C-alpha cells in the first residue's frame, strides 16, 4: 500500500554538460530520452496507472465479498475435517469465522505484519520449493538412458546370497535332545533319493517347510543364529543332509539351489531403477531450477566488501 518513490540518481555532473567520457554512451542515450516528450507522456501514463491501482487496492482492502464458490469451499473443508457437511447454523458460524480471519489478515497486512516475519518468510520459501518440484517433472527415461543409469549404479542393486530349500523338523520332546537327533538320523536314512520334500516325515513346524529365495539374514531371523542357518548356505545341495540344530530343534535339510551375491539383470529391478532414475532426475531438475533463480540475483557481501554474481 506504500507510496511509490522513483529515484533517479545522476551521479556524474559532467554527463549533463555533454562532456565526452569513456563509457558515456549509455548516459547520452538516457539524456536524450529524458528530453523526449513521448517519454514524458509515458511517465504520466504510468503514474496514472499506478495511482489508479493504488486507489483500488486501498478500497478493496476493506471490502470482503463472500462468494457462493467460497462458501462451497468452506463447506467442503468442514466436511473433510469432520466427516459430514455443516448444518445451516454451523455453516454460518464457519463463514463468520472465516470472514473475521480475513479481516484480521488484511488489517495485519496493512500494518505490514507479514514483513520481516520469519514464519511468513519460511512458508513462502517452502511454497517456492514445492513449486519448483512440481514445475519440472522429469521425463521418462528411454531404454538406453535406463540401461546407462543402471550400469553406473549397478552395485546399489546387488542382491545377497539366496537359497531355495526344504526342511523336516524334529522337535525335542520329553524324551530329550539325543532322542530327537536320533529320530532325525533315522529319517535321513529312510528318505528315497528322489524325494525333495517330505515334511510329513517329521513334526509340525509352525512356520513354512519350503523357502524359495531366503537370504542369510532372513534364515537367521527365523531359525536363530545357529548351525542350521549356516548349513543352509554351506551344506551340499541336491540331497538330504543333517541333522542340524536350529533355535527350535533338529532339522534335515534339502537345499535345492543356491545363488551367490549377484547383480541382477536390469529386467528384474526395472521398477526400482526407474524410480531411482526419476528421483535423481528430479533432484537434478530442482538443483537446476534453484541455480536459475540464483543467477537472477547479485549478492553483495558487504561484510567482505566484494561484489560478485551468485551461483558463479
Amino acid at each position, binding site marked *: 500500500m506504500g507510496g511509490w518513490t522513483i529515484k533517479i540518481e545522476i551521479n556524474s555532473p559532467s554527463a549533463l554538460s555533454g562532456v565526452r567520457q569513456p563509457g558515456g554512451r549509455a548516459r547520452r542515450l538516457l539524456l536524450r530520452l529524458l528530453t523526449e516528450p513521448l517519454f514524458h507522456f509515458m511517465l504520466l501514463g504510468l503514474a496514472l496507472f499506478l495511482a489508479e491501482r493504488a486507489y483500488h487496492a486501498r478500497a478493496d482492502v476493506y471490502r470482503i465479498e463472500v462468494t457462493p464458490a467460497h462458501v462451497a469451499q468452506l463447506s467442503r473443508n468442514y466436511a473433510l475435517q469432520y466427516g459430514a457437511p455443516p448444518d445451516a447454523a454451523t455453516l454460518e458460524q464457519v463463514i463468520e469465522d472465516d470472514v473475521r480471519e480475513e479481516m484480521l489478515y488484511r488489517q495485519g497486512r496493512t500494518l505490514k505484519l507479514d514483513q520481516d516475519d520469519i514464519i511468513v518468510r*519460511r512458508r513462502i520459501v517452502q511454497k517456492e520449493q*514445492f513449486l519448483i518440484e512440481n514445475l519440472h517433472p522429469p521425463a521418462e527415461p528411454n531404454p538406453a538412458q535406463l540401461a546407462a543409469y543402471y550400469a553406473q549404479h549397478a552395485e546399489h542393486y546387488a542382491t545377497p546370497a539366496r537359497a531355495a530349500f526344504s526342511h523336516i523338523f524334529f522337535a525335542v520332546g520329553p524324551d530329550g535332545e539325543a532322542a530327537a537327533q536320533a529320530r532325525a538320523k533315522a529319517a535321513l536314512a529312510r528318505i528315497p533319493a528322489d524325494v525333495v520334500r517330505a515334511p510329513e516325515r517329521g513334526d509340525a513346524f509352525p512356520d513354512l517347510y519350503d523357502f524359495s529365495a531366503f537370504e542369510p539374514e532372513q534364515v537367521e531371523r527365523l531359525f536363530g543364529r545357529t548351525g542350521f542357518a549356516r548349513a543352509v548356505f554351506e551344506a551340499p545341495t541336491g540331497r538330504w543332509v543333517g541333522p542340524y540344530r536350529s533355535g*527350535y530343534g533338529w532339522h534335515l535339510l534339502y537345499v535345492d539351489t543356491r545363488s551367490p551375491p549377484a547383480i541382477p539383470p536390469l529386467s528384474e529391478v526395472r521398477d526400482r531403477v526407474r524410480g531411482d532414475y526419476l528421483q535423481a532426475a528430479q533432484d537434478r531438475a530442482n538443483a537446476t531450477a534453484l541455480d536459475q533463480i540464483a543467477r537472477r540475483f547479485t549478492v553483495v557481501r558487504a561484510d567482505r566488501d566484494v561484489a560478485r554474481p551468485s551461483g558463479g
Partner: protein
Amino acid sequence: MKIRGLWITTALVAVGATAAFTQVQTPAVKPAAAHPTTMQPDARRAFFGELHLHTVMSFDAWAFGTKVTPDQAYKFARGETVMAPASQVAIQQGVRGGGALVAARRAWPLDFTAVTDHSEYLGAMTQLDDPTSAFSQSAIGKELSKGGQQAFFRAGALLHVEGGGETAPEMKQAAAAADGWNVEVKAANANYQPGKFTTFVAYEWTSSPGQGIHMHRNVIFNSDHAPNPFTAVDSNKPEDLWKYLASVRRQGIDVLAIPHNSNLSDGRDFDWNMSDGRPIDEAYALTRALNEPLVEIAQTKGSSDTTPELSPNDEFANFEIMDRVYKGETSPRQHGSYVREAYGRGLVVQSQVGVNPFKMGVVGASDIHNGLTVSDEDSFAGRISGLDKKTMLPTGPGARAALGMARMVGEVGVRPNGQRENDPLQFSGAAITGVWAEENNRESIFAALKRKETFATTGTRIRVRMFGGWGFNPAMTSRTDWVKQAYAKGVPMGSDLPAAPAGKAPRFVLQAMKDPDGANLDRAQIIKVWLVGKDYRERVFDVALSGGRKVDPKTGRAAAVGNTVDLTTGKTANTIGAETLSAVWRDPTFDPHTPAVYYARVLEIPTARWTTHLAIANHLPIPKAAPATIQERAWTSPIWFTPPKAAVKG
C-alpha cells in the same frame, strides 16, 4: 510486456502453488505397488513389528532431548546403522562421547514399523533448535527451550485444553513452519521396501482428558499419503476421531485406530458410557468396533491385560503393572482400564445393545520416545528410551537415574503414602506386534491387522497361532499340514466361531514356538471370559505344559517351571522349558447359550528383567523394588463365540 509477463508468472505461481499443496503428500516417485496376494492362508508367516514410536517430531520426545528423526527411526528399525546425535545419548543414557555422533544398530531388524509421533503441534518444538526462529523468540518458546521435565509438563498442559487455540498460537505457528506431516509421510515412503520392510504412514492422537489420563490412539493409514491428522486439539473425544477416520475412508484410504495405555485411562477406555456420559448404544458400539479392531496390550508404560486385583485367580496376572505415572496422588482406576475386563464388558454391552464395542485383537509396541525402537530386555535404557547396548549403555548417573537410585533433574513426586510417582522401576521393556500375513508389504500386513490375525509379545519373537472350530481332530497337531486343516475346518484368532452344531463343544488348536535366539517356553494357556447376567467371569486353563508337568486336579494349577537365571551374569540356562508347545483343547465348561471370548497366553521360562541387566552391567545392586526376573509372554487375539440371539440365556 514486462507487466504481462509478470501477470503470467503470478498466475502460474498461483496455479502451481495450489497444485503443489494438493499433491504435496504424494511422493514424487511412488513405491512399486504390491499386488493383492493369491497365496493360500496356510502360507501366512509371522512378521514382527513396531506400531508405536516417537521421534524428535513429538513435543515430549523433543523435551526429553531426542534428536533422532522419523527417517532415522525407520532406518534403525530395519536394521541399518544410524548415527544418533551424542547430545541425545548424553541426556538419555548418561554416556559421555567424544564425537558428535554415536553409531546405533538394532540387535535384529523388524519386519514392519509405524512411526507415530504426537500429532498435536507436530514438529513445533524442532523450531526451537533454530535460535532465530519466531518460536525461539517467543516467551513460551524461551520457557520450553530449557527442555526437560518442566518443558514436558508445560507443553503437555497445552495439549490438555480442547480447542487449544488461544493458549498456544505460537505452538501452532511453529508446527506450521515445521511442516511435520510431510516429514512423516516422506520418511514412511522413503523407507518402505515391499517384501523386506514395511512402513506405515501413522500418527498418535493424544487425547488426555486430565493430568496423566491416557485416552490415546495410534492412527495407522494403509496408504502412501493421508490427509492432515485430526488432533486432540481438534477434539479429545474418540467419537470425533472416528468421524475423521470415516472421512478418510471416503477418500479411498483405509485406516484404523489403536487405543493404548488403557491401563492409564483411569477407567475411561473401556467405560460403560460414551464421552457424553450416556450408556453405550448400538451406533457407538458399531462405530467403535469398525474403527478400533485392535488394542495395545503391552508397552514400556506397562501391560494392560489385567491386574492381580481384577484377576485374583490368575497366578501370572502380576506382570509389569504400571500404576503410578503422572497421575498425582492416586493410582488410575483399574476397572474400565484393562483388556481382559473389556472383553467381559463387551459381552455385557452386546447382550444389551446387540453389538460388542470391545471386539479387539491385540498388538504390542514400545512407545519409545527416543526414536530407537528396541525390544530386548538388555537394550532398554529405562523410562521410554531404547538403545544399542553395544554403544549406548547407560552408565554412571544415567544408569542410577534409570534404576531409580538417583533423581532426574526436575523430577518430582513422592505421594503421602511414600509411593514414588512416575517410578522409573515401573517402566517395562518394550513389546512388539506379531501378524500372520502372506507377504511383508502394506496391503498384506494391514489386512492382517484388520482381521485381527495378530499377537503381542513382550519383546521376544515367540510365534503363536490359535484356531477355533467344531470339527478339529484331537491329534491334528501331529500332522505337519495341520495349519491347512485348521484354516479349512475352523477360524484363526481374531475371528468369530461359526454357529455351534448341536451337542458339540468347540476345540481350540494352538501352537507356540520360542524365540529362535531366546528362552524356552514354560506353558501355553487359554483364557476364557464369559457372560454371567450383567457381569462376566474369567478362567485360565493350562493347555500345554513343558517338562511333562500336569495340572493338579485339586488346585487347578501346575507346578512352577523353575528359574535358571544367573543373577551375576543375567544369563538364562535354557535347561528347562520347551522349544515348541502345541495343544488341541476342548472347552470342558462350554455352554451353547453363553457368549464367550477365548484368547491364548504363552509364557517363557524366567529371564532377567531390564533392571537386572542394567544393574549387572554397571556393577550396581539389583533393585529390590522390582522383580529380578520376569516371564516374558505372548498374547493372541481372541476368538469369540456368540450364540444365536434366541439361544442366549436371560
